[in-house]
């Protein structure tokens, strides 16, 4: 018996030792890389993007680590589903990564001190090249809090030219207004089998929340909060029209009642389940990567509007930018990576834009020039649509907290499915938005944002 006790004790001790030995202490750090030693280590969290993007991120980190001997960047992919909670938890515990990638606006993060301003870390002339559209979403109170990589329209219209032709429609002429879309659907619908639909759009409130911002602005001339963020402003009858658009699609069974794929994926179009799809410009690079035989028959155009005016607020402009955490212990080393990868030789960035099939706009003019010179651009007829017909008429994403987008997304969803009348749905959204405004004192936050 005593021997057994001893053995148990020994086993317990061993277990404890092996557990301790497993610890490297730094999240995401892989022990193998010898380059990591004797260099300044920079922790970099990226998310999961499309296949060519993921490949570029891996490569650019590798190249940087090979190109110099002072800094070692350790790149970790955090899945999109886990992103919010992982970053939140890491920030709360004070061990967020030195740098990470962010889409969307950075105002709230900058205001609450999560980010480090880049002005003192990166030479001013590097910033000079950045386009105005990219600058607007990367600054807060006149300071750079993010380094922009790209701009991309978040809402475009993709359509299946084959189906258009079969339905007797001009395959090269997509609808431009809500009404034209209805007409197209009337012709397409008889061709569809059970489980196929005329239009695929957002199908859940959150996705509606961020994909309809430009349309909200377009139909009503304002967003659902007052300019100073003190009052909810969601009860505009124009928003009822917007809900009505989706409601018509629903009522005629032209769009599915449940999304056919993830909110930001081109899967439904790729698998031939929809004739038209509302999706960001990245959808085209997804089609090219995952459904190559669909490339020839897929077209891209600005998304339809109530009045057919395709030069005012036709889409929000999404973006990706790199940020440095305010508590980073190595901001200078991190900034050298920023300058090398995003602010330096355009050739470093070129493969990113070429491999994503010219669906994204670089944040620097120099890079755009290099990318456009690539011979492959000739095989990507949609690139001129993205760069010339869509990007110039995009508006920035909304700056207020996402709860407000979600409230309006809820209204669209419940109005569209007939859960509530559009009017009642908007009334509820209005209350919800006001609640957020009061709870987070957004009027005060807005004043702070405006002050320079």
């Amino acid at each position, binding site marked *: 018996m005593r021997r057994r006790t001893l053995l148990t004790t020994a086993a317990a001790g061993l277990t404890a030792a092996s557990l301790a030995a497993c610890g490297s202490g730094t999240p995401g750090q892989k022990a193998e890389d010898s380059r990591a030693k004797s260099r300044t280590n920079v922790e970099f969290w990226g998310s999961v993007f499309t296949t060519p993007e993921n490949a570029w991120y891996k490569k650019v980190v590798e190249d940087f680590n090979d190109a110099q001997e002072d800094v070692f960047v350790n790149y970790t992919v955090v899945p999109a589903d886990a992103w919010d909670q992982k970053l939140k938890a890491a920030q709360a515990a004070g061990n967020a990564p030195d740098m990470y990638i962010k889409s969307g606006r950075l105002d709230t993060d900058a205001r609450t001190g999560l980010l480090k301003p880049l002005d003192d870390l990166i030479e001013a002339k590097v910033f000079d090249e950045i386009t105005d559209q990219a600058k607007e979403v990367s600054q807060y109170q006149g300071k750079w809090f993010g380094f922009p990589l790209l701009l991309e329209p978040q809402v475009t219209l993709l359509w299946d030219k084959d189906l258009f032709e079969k339905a007797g429609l001009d395959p090269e002429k997509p609808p431009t207004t809500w009404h034209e879309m209805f007409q197209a659907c009337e012709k397409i619908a008889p061709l569809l089998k059970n489980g196929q639909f005329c239009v695929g759009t957002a199908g859940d409130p959150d996705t509606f929340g961020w994909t309809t911002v430009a349309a909200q602005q377009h139909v009503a001339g304002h967003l659902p909060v007052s300019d100073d963020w003190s009052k909810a402003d969601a009860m505009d009858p124009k928003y009822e029209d917007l809900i009505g658009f989706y409601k018509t699609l629903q009522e005629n069974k032209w769009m599915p009642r449940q999304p056919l794929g993830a909110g930001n994926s081109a899967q439904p179009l790729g698998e031939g389940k929809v004739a038209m799809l509302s999706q960001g410009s990245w959808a085209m690079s997804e089609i090219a990567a995952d459904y190559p035989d669909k490339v020839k028959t897929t077209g891209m155009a600005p998304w339809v509007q109530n009045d057919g005016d395709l030069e005012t607020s036709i889409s929000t402009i999404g973006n990706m930018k790199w940020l440095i955490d305010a508590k980073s212990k190595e901001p200078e080393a991190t900034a050298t990576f920023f300058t090398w990868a995003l602010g330096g030789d355009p050739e470093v960035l070129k493969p990113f834009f070429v491999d994503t099939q010219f669906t994204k706009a670089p944040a620097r003019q120099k890079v755009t020039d290099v990318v456009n010179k690539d011979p492959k651009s000739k095989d990507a007829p949609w690139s001129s649509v993205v760069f010339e017909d869509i990007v110039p008429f995009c508006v920035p994403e909304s700056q207020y907290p996402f709860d407000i987008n979600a409230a309006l997304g*809820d209204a669209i969803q419940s109005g569209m499915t007939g859960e509530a009348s559009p009017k009642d749905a908007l009334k509820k959204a209005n209350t919800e938005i006001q609640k957020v405004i009061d709870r987070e004192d957004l009027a005060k936050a807005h004043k702070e944002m405006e002050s320079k």
Partner: protein
Amino acid sequence: MSALREAAAAPDARPVRSSARRRDSLMAYIMLAPVLVLLGTFVVWPAIQAIYLSFFDWSFYTPSQFVGVKNYADVLGDDRFWQAIGRGLVFVVMTVPVSLVLSFLIASLAVSVSRRVSTLLKISIYIPSVISGVIASITFVMIYDYSGGILNALINVVGLPNQAWLGDPRWALGAIALPAVWLGLGISTLIMIAALLDVPQSFYEAAELEGASWWQRTRYITVPQIKNVLLFLLVTGFVASIQQYELPLVMTAGGPQHATELPNLFIFNHFRKDTYVGYSIAAAMLLFAVLGSISSVIFRIVNSEKLVD
């Protein structure tokens, strides 16, 4: 660890009352140490910290601000919170009674068939219980798929149109309840089988002599005899069900229109989306309080029922 060895090796003395007591204490502390240290570090201390944090507005990188009970007031005044609690109760009603009735029926069947068939039944009904919420979610999302899922294909056969099981607020909560029942049925059935086997066979023989029907036997013999087990299953089912959040997290993230945002998921969604963390911690505290009081009420009922027996 060395203390453990020493204590084990210590020569055994004849019991002398006071020193025996002392050695009892020593052994108890050694035996308790791992559990107490771990629970203290990973449960009690975080709980104390959570209580403390619930009185602050904290966005992590700026100094946290003491806001008194503001977070609690925000939560209590938020009808979304109450809707989430209400939804949790609806979910309980959708899952627990169904689960109890089904496991009772399956258990009744299992005790009335041959041993081999009974084993087969037990094994197949229990296998789903070892499946994770993630895998169950992935599988059921495929089953519910709008335009290529097997469920819609089945209802098409009887002439009904496709339904948006996860996209329509009227269906979604039920669509989450189904895998929840599927995952939980095994354990409750096995417990129920054990309880049925404990009912003395003579009761049934007597009833059969008097010509009692199956329903009468169930109503007047079985149910009263296994009442404690039923109550136990009710309570544990309630606690498990109202805390469910993994299934809706993976399957719907709480949508559509919050129709599947069960209480814990409501908190989790607030945590990952809010700028300030106080709201979600206060909501978690309040949920703890609400759950605790409901559980204690149920426990009280259970206990009083036990006393009557």
